[in-house]
């Protein structure tokens, strides 16, 4: 390893410490890519170490891909060359495991490609100015106007808002997390109750459930914001130790080809989430739209690891689809397109997943670091869905996972996104952020204490704006009254519904 004269004294000292530690532990050897040490900043060096350490862990716990044998040789070569420069002992060669082959469209029955009679997407109007389009999704429990916002009811309940009031605010599709429902009350109990519609007493509106893939990510890295800000640093395991451990006894998640091993945050019990089991759970929950199991890699990740993750997600999704086709039960399944911000991987993911008989497409994975990267990602990716193909990509709905701030909504809609979900409106409502046409306002600020008679949003006709003013909301938040959360959440949900309604009208008028 070389350190140039330009490096700071701190860099010299840290490198010395790092070398001593590596020599002492002898756990891994530095790949060739890291030999040009001096060009890296301290932070990126740390993330580089951790990514390679994660690579070593994944390689030790999972199968290696057939397609990456050459890359394995490259890595081994790098290891060998680095070994000659370090004093580490040679590591014993690892057993090469064979991964199952990726399923092709021929592995699925012909009838799976035929249109479903219970799920249909119709395009009412295509904007002349952009890829935006107004449509309607027909499900067994009601219709969804698109572009539409999907509120997130993590535990089959919106925060402080009764579903009936959300429906009155024209909220159509509701998102529920399978992972949380598995932990409590359990898929079997929901099935006993007659499905999520009967369980929540929301019989005439549709639900969508995810697979739990996002929780794989969040348990390891924290929220998306935490991962981006920490530059890929893995979430510290709880307890006294600060080091990430590759032992399921201490970790919250462990990923393998079979599936993902979770540790329940409720009681610490372990369970395995496989592509098949997540589909079975979603069948029991009974949502109208379900999502196959996928892995969400972080933004800061080595490309080789990303490639493996995308391939694994493809294999999982195909397995989930096979399980789903065994008994469709009037449910539609969306695939989840991955690939981070890598154009090649995204294209490969779109091409592969759209060739399979999914009923819709969800854009998932890491969507970039910020709104600008998301916009650029959608710029070059969404036209892929408009290409003429035998699989009718254009005629299927597209869902953007986990993004629903106003600016991103507008960027996504003009590029052809039909629905998007986020817990943002209800989450920020809990903390006193009110969404308005003039931008979001922090109602806890003292300047609203005497805003008597001022509605939260002049254009809004929700129950909160009709009966209360900003001063009163300020007072309720300051007094920590539960109804403050309820009122704020109701307003934010109404705001999102009104926003999407305005956007649909603008598309109809060819304004966007």
């Amino acid at each position, binding site marked *: 390893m070389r350190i140039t004269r330009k490096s700071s004294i701190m860099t010299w000292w840290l490198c010395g410490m790092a070398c001593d530690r590596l020599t002492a532990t002898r756990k891994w050897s530095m790949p060739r890519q890291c030999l040009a040490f001096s060009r890296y900043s301290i932070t990126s060096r740390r993330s580089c170490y951790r990514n390679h350490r994660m690579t070593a862990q994944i390689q030790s716990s999972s199968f290696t891909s057939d397609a990456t044998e050459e890359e394995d040789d490259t890595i081994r070569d790098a290891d060998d060359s680095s070994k000659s420069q370090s004093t580490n002992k040679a590591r014993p060669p690892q057993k090469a495991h064979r991964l199952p082959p990726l399923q092709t469209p021929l592995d699925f029955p012909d009838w799976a490609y035929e249109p479903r009679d219970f799920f249909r997407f119709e395009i009412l109007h295509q904007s002349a100015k952009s890829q935006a389009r107004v449509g309607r999704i027909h499900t067994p429990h009601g219709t969804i106007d698109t572009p539409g916002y999907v509120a997130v009811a993590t535990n089959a309940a919106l925060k402080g808002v009764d579903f009936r009031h959300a429906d009155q605010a024209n909220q159509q599709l509701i998102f529920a997390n399978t992972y949380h429902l598995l932990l409590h*009350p359990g898929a079997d109990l929901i099935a006993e109750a007659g499905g999520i519609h009967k369980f929540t007493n929301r019989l005439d509106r549709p639900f969508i459930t995810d697979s739990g893939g996002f929780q794989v990510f969040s348990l390891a890295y924290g929220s998306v914001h935490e991962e981006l800000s920490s530059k890929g640093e893995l979430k510290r395991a709880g307890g006294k130790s600060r080091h990430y451990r590759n032992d399921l006894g201490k970790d919250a998640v462990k990923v393998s080809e079979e599936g993902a091993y979770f540790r329940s945050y409720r009681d610490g019990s372990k369970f395995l989430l496989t592509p098949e089991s997540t589909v079975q759970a979603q069948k029991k929950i009974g949502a109208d739209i379900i999502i196959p199991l996928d892995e969400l890699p972080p933004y800061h990740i080595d490309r080789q690891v990303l490639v493996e993750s995308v391939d694994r997600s493809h294999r999982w999704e195909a397995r989930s689809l096979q399980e789903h086709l065994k008994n469709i039960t009037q449910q539609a399944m969306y695939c989840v397109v991955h690939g981070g911000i890598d154009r090649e991987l995204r294209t490969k993911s779109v091409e592969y997943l759209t060739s399979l008989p999914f009923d819709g497409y969800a854009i998932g994975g890491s969507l970039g670091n910020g709104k600008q990267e998301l916009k650029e990602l959608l710029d070059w990716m969404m036209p892929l869905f408009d290409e003429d193909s035998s699989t009718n990509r254009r005629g299927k709905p597209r869902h953007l996972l986990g993004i629903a701030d106003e600016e991103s909504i507008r960027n996504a809609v003009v590029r052809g996104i039909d629905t998007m979900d986020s817990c943002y409106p209800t989450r920020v409502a809990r903390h006193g952020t009110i969404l308005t046409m003039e931008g979001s306002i922090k109602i806890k600020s003292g300047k609203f204490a005497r805003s008597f008679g001022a509605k939260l949003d002049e254009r809004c006709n929700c129950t909160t704006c009709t009966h209360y003013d900003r001063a009163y909301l300020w007072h309720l938040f300051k007094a920590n009254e539960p109804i403050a959360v309820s009122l704020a959440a109701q307003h934010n949900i109404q705001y999102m519904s009104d926003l999407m309604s305005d956007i649909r009208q603008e598309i109809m008028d060819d304004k966007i």
Partner: protein
Amino acid sequence: MSPNPVDGTAETSSVDCSCSPKREMLHLLLYCKDGCVPYLNPTQLEQYFPPSSGLWLCLSVQDACVFPMFDKPVKKKAKDDVINKKTKEVPAEPKKVRGYAFASAPPDPWLLPYTRVTVPYFSNKNKEQLADNKSICVWTPHGRQRLASETYAKVAMEGLQSNYTVSLFDDAGVSSVKQPDSVRWQKAHGRNNLWLEQLVQVAKQQDALDRIWRPVFLPPSNHDDEVNNDAMTNESQTGSLGAAGVAFVGKWRHGLLTGNNGMAQIPDDVKWKCLLSTTSLLEFVEIAAQGYFNIVGTDLPALWAKEKVALIVQPQRGPSTNEPTAKRPKLDADEKGGETDHANEPTLDFNGCIDMSDKVHARDPRPLVEGCTCMTCQHGGRFSRGYIHHLVCAKELLAEILLFAHNLHHMLELIRLFNEGGSDPADIVNTIKSRLPNAK
């Protein structure tokens, strides 16, 4: 007051219904800790709890009328005018709060079309708080503040514009002392009378004397009975000073209405007799059954919702509708633990409530109460006990909202039963008491 005949029943009732020959309409006074009904938005209130349901709201100045005070504009030297040494006024940043003060809140849109009663506070945390003839310390959401009597009079009469206002009182000075004839008690008593007189003066100026209620303090149990009688006599002999109503402050005890107790000597022209606080269901129904009070205050529905319990005990036997009771699913042998089904029934607490966090509700498809017409159980479809149990375990706010709506509905149904007069109040109390565990 002529005694009412009490029907002979197998169970002896300790409720004394001999106080009032004529029962007046009973109302439930619900604590609204921040000027609003807890948990429910206006739409839900209008739909499920209209003003005609007998619901009154109790507002307190302690938490509804505290506002921040901001810095006044200060004069600063403008950067460009340093040479000329000119100064200009720079408005202070609105974010900097200088302190808090009680101020009037403008009428509506906060205020809903319910009958409202204003009190200075529901309870003061520190019983040793300071009070003098001019003001009293109260705990607000923004810390401890001094509430002056003139400020209270202005805020309560002009700001909140409630239908009725209880004058400022120092209950700590009255209830915390061991002997009512101590110096501290005498001072607190005198202070309360002084504040009442001040409020009456303000009300006379506004021609709103019929909106004033006088506080009367119920003697605590640690006082001697003889001393209590003297104290109550003193209270009653002071008179209402023209106030339209009397608000009893303190904990209710049996025997306060018997004998030559001073409470019975409250003048008859006092239209409203309100007990501000009740702390249990049995106490609530016994007081409602007596007929002496026509307004009973309570915070029990919200308290129970916070504790995740649901009131299910009813005065009628069996469901009030013909709706068949849903069959409970058979539990697995593992869950049963080899015991009979009775072991899996939820346990009632001393308030006739069931704990919704109990796992026995996890698979229960029934509503909280069969035949209940509340927002949770019946209106627009019902939420099952299993779903509410899930919400409780998931720590969702919706659980408290649903439980509060149900509990409040149930309490108002009890009020309605007493007002209808179809059943003997003693029977209602005995029926409820027979279903409560460990009820005396």
